[in-house]
């Protein structure tokens, strides 16, 4: 049985090699379809994982009244712009609630060479968690102690080649190029964070005092006696950790009904689910289109096999004369389809691996998506699925070859 199978596949391979021009084109079309399906799923799942890993342990995100998604995107993912600020009094009111364990104030709106600048305090380094409860840690240097100190993310350090002691100038606004720079108040890099695979890597962190310093008129800013006691007039958002998760809904209701200024409080997990729900339709549409491309590739394979049948009738007749049974002819055609499908799908999946290695740094830098390298269960499912469909549709040419071989006998009348 095994010997017969090996014989069939060996003949099938040699037959394909003999027609390698058309076989290569068919293989390429299957490779492209498999690659497309794999890429769409990889980007989809890796984007979800990257987003889900960005924040952990935070019970509520508070900002000025806006949509839940907008608040989540600008405060955590540094995507989009805040609609308004929150007053420091509101921050203190929230801080005074007994359910609250910790708060991280966030002040956004400026950038350095395309990287977002976040004004915050030392609680950020103590309480911010990502992935599965990991805390931020410094690879070199220390957290800020002065108003003009900056702690940069790993990506910022790597891309801009910054190290401790580097002087940087913050630009007003969020674009990579800005006409308004705060070059009268340069900052000094005092710490570089370990890589996290989150937007933290692409953030320049300064103190709240530093944020106010660069926006104050010349000479209009008085440096605080102690950095941690500095109280700005307003901030952009607040990350909240509660003593007990049971209190999430009551605190959320309190904040959403807050009378002194309009606030929004969102639960990160719920907002993420909203995000998946929103983009889920597009994801499945893309997967559907990719599946159609796979089908087109397999139909191309079917067409190739069918077209080749007539010119191969003499070959089949010779095989019959040396003892091949109709079943051998049938399985020869199936083996050719299986080989093309397997090699095509494998080529496509390996090409995806290569492409991922090449575009990985770009995807991380530009979109914050940590693309994973290595074949996954879905890839094996793609491989098996394409193989199955190819073998299934190749039953048609295999059956025709089988019928021809019975009708032609040992002499072909073509």
């Amino acid at each position, binding site marked *: 049985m095994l010997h017969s199978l090996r*014989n069939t596949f060996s*003949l099938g391979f*040699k*037959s394909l*090699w*003999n027609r390698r021009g058309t076989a290569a084109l068919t293989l390429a079309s299957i490779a492209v379809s498999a690659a497309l399906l794999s890429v769409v799923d990889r980007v989809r799942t890796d984007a979800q994982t990257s987003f889900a890993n960005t924040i952990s342990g935070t019970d509520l995100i508070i900002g000025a009244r806006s949509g839940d998604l907008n608040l989540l995107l600008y405060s955590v993912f540094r995507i989009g712009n805040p609609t308004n600020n929150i007053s420091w009094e509101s921050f203190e009111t929230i801080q005074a609630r007994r359910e609250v364990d910790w708060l991280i104030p966030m002040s956004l709106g400026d950038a350095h060479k395309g990287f977002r600048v976040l004004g915050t305090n030392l609680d950020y380094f103590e309480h911010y968690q990502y992935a599965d409860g990991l805390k931020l840690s410094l690879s070199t240097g220390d957290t800020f102690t002065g108003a003009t100190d900056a702690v940069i993310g790993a990506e910022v350090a790597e891309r801009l080649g910054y190290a401790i002691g580097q002087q940087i100038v913050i630009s007003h606004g969020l674009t990579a190029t800005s006409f308004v720079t705060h070059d009268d108040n340069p900052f000094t890099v005092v710490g570089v964070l370990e890589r996290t695979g989150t937007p933290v890597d692409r953030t320049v962190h300064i103190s709240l005092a530093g944020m106010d310093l660069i926006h104050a008129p010349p000479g209009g800013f008085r440096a605080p006696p102690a950095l941690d006691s500095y109280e700005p007039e307003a901030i952009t958002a607040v990350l909240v950790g509660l003593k007990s998760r049971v209190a999430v809904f009551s605190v959320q209701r309190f904040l959403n009904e807050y009378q002194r200024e309009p606030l929004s409080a969102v639960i990160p997990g719920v907002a993420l689910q909203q995000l998946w729900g929103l983009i889920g339709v597009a994801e499945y549409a893309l997967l559907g289109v990719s599946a159609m491309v796979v089908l087109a590739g397999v139909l191309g394979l079917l067409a190739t096999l069918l077209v080749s049948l007539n010119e191969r009738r*003499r*070959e089949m007749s*010779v*095989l*019959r*004369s*040396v*003892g*091949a*049974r*109709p079943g*051998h002819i049938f399985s020869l055609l199936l083996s050719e389809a299986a080989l093309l499908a397997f090699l095509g799908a494998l080529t496509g999946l390996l090409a995806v691996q290569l492409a991922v290695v090449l575009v990985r740094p770009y995807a991380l830098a530009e979109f914050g998506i940590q693309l994973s390298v290595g074949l996954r269960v879905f890839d094996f499912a793609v491989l098996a699925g394409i193989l199955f469909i190819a073998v299934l549709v190749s039953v048609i040419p295999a059956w025709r070859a089988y019928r021809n071989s*019975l009708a032609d*006998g*040992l*002499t*072909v009348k073509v």
Partner: protein
Amino acid sequence: MSDPRAEYAHAVSVEGLKFGYIAGEEVLSIDALAIEPKKRVFLYGPSGCGKSTLLSMIGGVLVPGEGRVSVLDQDLSAMKGSARDRVRADHLGIIFQQFNLVPYLSVVENVCLPCRYSQRRLKRAESDDGAVEASAARLLSELGIDERLRARRSTDLSVGQQQRVAAARALIGRPELIIADEPTSSLDADRRRDFVSLLLAECESADSTVIFVSHDQSLASHFDEAIDLRDINRTERHPDAA
């Protein structure tokens, strides 16, 4: 090459055979035909007289509408298709007029091809020469195919070389019956005689019965017996075929 073969009375026997591709249009009607083991039979007749049809029946691809066709005393007419295929794989070597070889296989691979489908022939080839490739090499050498050509693709050979490779393929594993269906029609007269002599010598050393079909009667002298198919086929279908 001392393989004790099973004893059988006839290599081929045909009794009361009637066959037509279309109902009412008989192509073959043979009362009796018997070919003894190890005989070298020359079967001739004009194109369209039913030679290839008779060979297809002896090869077990076609079955008669009436009567019996037996090979090595096994009644093919009573067998299922798969059993007839097995008889062909194990006991028959077939050489065609042209397009004999599988284009994507090398010369040696073409010669070894029957052993992929018949364990019996595979074992006999291994028993004769130690390995099936060695058996193929010996046959190719005896049939005058240069060693350098063995690894080449069959399509790189001349027509005469291809026919000799086809003969080696038919002979590998020493099948009891060799059927050659006008294998010399594309060769010139000298090469035709050389090919027939070589083929018959090989068949003799393999103890194989030969049925050689041709419309060239000048070759008849090489054989033990010459049969004009028109003499035994009683159909009136091809009176002008002569």
